[in-house]
């Protein structure tokens, strides 16, 4: 199982890098969807040896459906409504974003070797979770479009999810569902706001929102 979890973590890193290196919004959304599905499988793999419970399967399925199907669908719709295809001029260019993404992993590995963390079953889990959070922040900071920032938010949430799974052995189902619901509402609201902004201003360039202030 451990090899599979490792492979899943490596996949998550690669998807993060792909998100950082891609300018097409549709492909970014798809990348985040795949990451959501992959990470949704994680609780099943983590608990494989102890045996699966119905609650766990339900949680995993809920998470996969929200992150892998609902979010992308909402976002793709918002993108189509706003009629933007690609991020034109990010604040940090794509090659540099990719390298920074790798750097976040290095940083997280170093942090994890310093932090007094409980012994995780896999060495990669916590560093990758932390690096995913950092990548989400990086996306939020470095991109102009509102949709990209929503994506950054989702990625960050993915990272927190993995961190939570690893650090807290048994998350109550209600909390987990609550988090999912929160994230869902957030994404939904943001996509609607994006749509409204694009209708009012003909673009969704978050960089220019400072013109809204009085």
């Amino acid at each position, binding site marked *: 199982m451990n*090899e599979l979890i*490792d*492979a899943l973590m*490596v996949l998550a*890193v*690669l998807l993060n*890098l792909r998100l950082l*290196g891609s300018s097409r919004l549709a492909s970014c959304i798809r990348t985040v969807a795949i990451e959501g599905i992959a990470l949704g499988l994680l609780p099943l793999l983590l608990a494989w040896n102890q045996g699966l419970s119905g609650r766990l399967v339900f949680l995993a399925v809920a998470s996969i459906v929200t992150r892998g199907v609902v979010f992308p669908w909402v976002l793709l719709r918002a993108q189509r409504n706003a009629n933007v295809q690609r991020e034109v001029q990010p604040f940090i260019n*794509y*090659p540099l974003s*990719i*390298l920074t*993404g*790798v750097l976040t*992993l*290095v940083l997280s*590995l170093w942090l994890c070797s310093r932090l007094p963390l409980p012994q995780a079953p896999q*060495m*990669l889990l916590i560093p990758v979770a932390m690096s995913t959070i950092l990548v989400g922040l990086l996306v939020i900071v470095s991109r102009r479009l509102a949709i990209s920032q929503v994506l950054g938010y989702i990625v960050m949430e993915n990272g927190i999810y993995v961190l939570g799974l690893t650090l807290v052995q048994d998350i109550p189902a209600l909390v987990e569902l609550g988090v999912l619901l929160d994230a869902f509402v957030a994404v939904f609201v943001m996509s609607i706001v994006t749509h409204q902004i694009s209708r009012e201003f003909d673009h969704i360039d978050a960089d220019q929102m400072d013109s809204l202030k009085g």
Partner: protein
Amino acid sequence: MTQILVNILLPLILAPLLLGVINRTKAVLAGRTGQPLLQLYFDLWKLLHKGAVYSRTTSWVFRAGPMVGLAAILTASAIVPLGETSAPLHFAGDLILLAYLLGLARFFTVIAALDTGSAFEGMGASREVTFSALAEPAFLLGLAALARLTDNLSLTGILGGLTWHTWAASAPELAMAAAAMLIVFLAENARIPVDDPNTHLELTMIHEVMVLDHSGPDFAFILYGSSVKMWVLGAILVQAVLPASSAGYEARLAICLAGMFALAVLVGVIESVMARLRMIRVPQLLVAAIAFSLLAIILVLRRP
């Protein structure tokens, strides 16, 4: 002794065939009959028996370029093992010599292009040095990851040391290193998605546009040199991916050759299904290769 002879001669004989296989794959996928498999051999034969035309602007640098390039690539081909035996030239750090011999070949190709004074060849030269400057760290870091996996410093040792066991224990890092190598392979050999060897629109080319003015035997040297270079980089990639086995020498050689032609088919497939990237996006692909190499290293370092 025979093994060394085979190791030296086989790449020199078979290298042009790789291009034939690539072109045949593309033709089949496009539903055409395509050129003969041995087309490059015919081309080389024809070019070797032609005279040459030189631009009045050029000097001896232009004439020396193809010869230096071919000589450097041929020397480099002696460093790469074939069928996971000892290469004719193998020593601690031979991979550095390999990288810099290819650099020597590139340097002379580039200045030969600048010698023509043509804007187009200058453009190609400029792109070539740009992309190779980014491919170099990816290549050497990828090899460093493999060197750490096998605890060895020569290509012979590294490629021979990657066994089934290595794959089983460290599949992700090997896959990362292989991905980086594949990108470097495509970029250095001027294949899609970095460069399109088939377009004859000078503005969009890299390697082809640098050699527009060469003719006759000089051009034959260039064509042959690039096919051997493809073999050299391909052999590293294939033997890094194919685990070393304990089978007999003939079997290993056969596996390796099969791998080479499988790689050619893969390149043909890639060229059939992908378009060339815009020039401005190529650095991003190469940075992705660097990122793959770095990830491979991070994963390797993580292991106790």
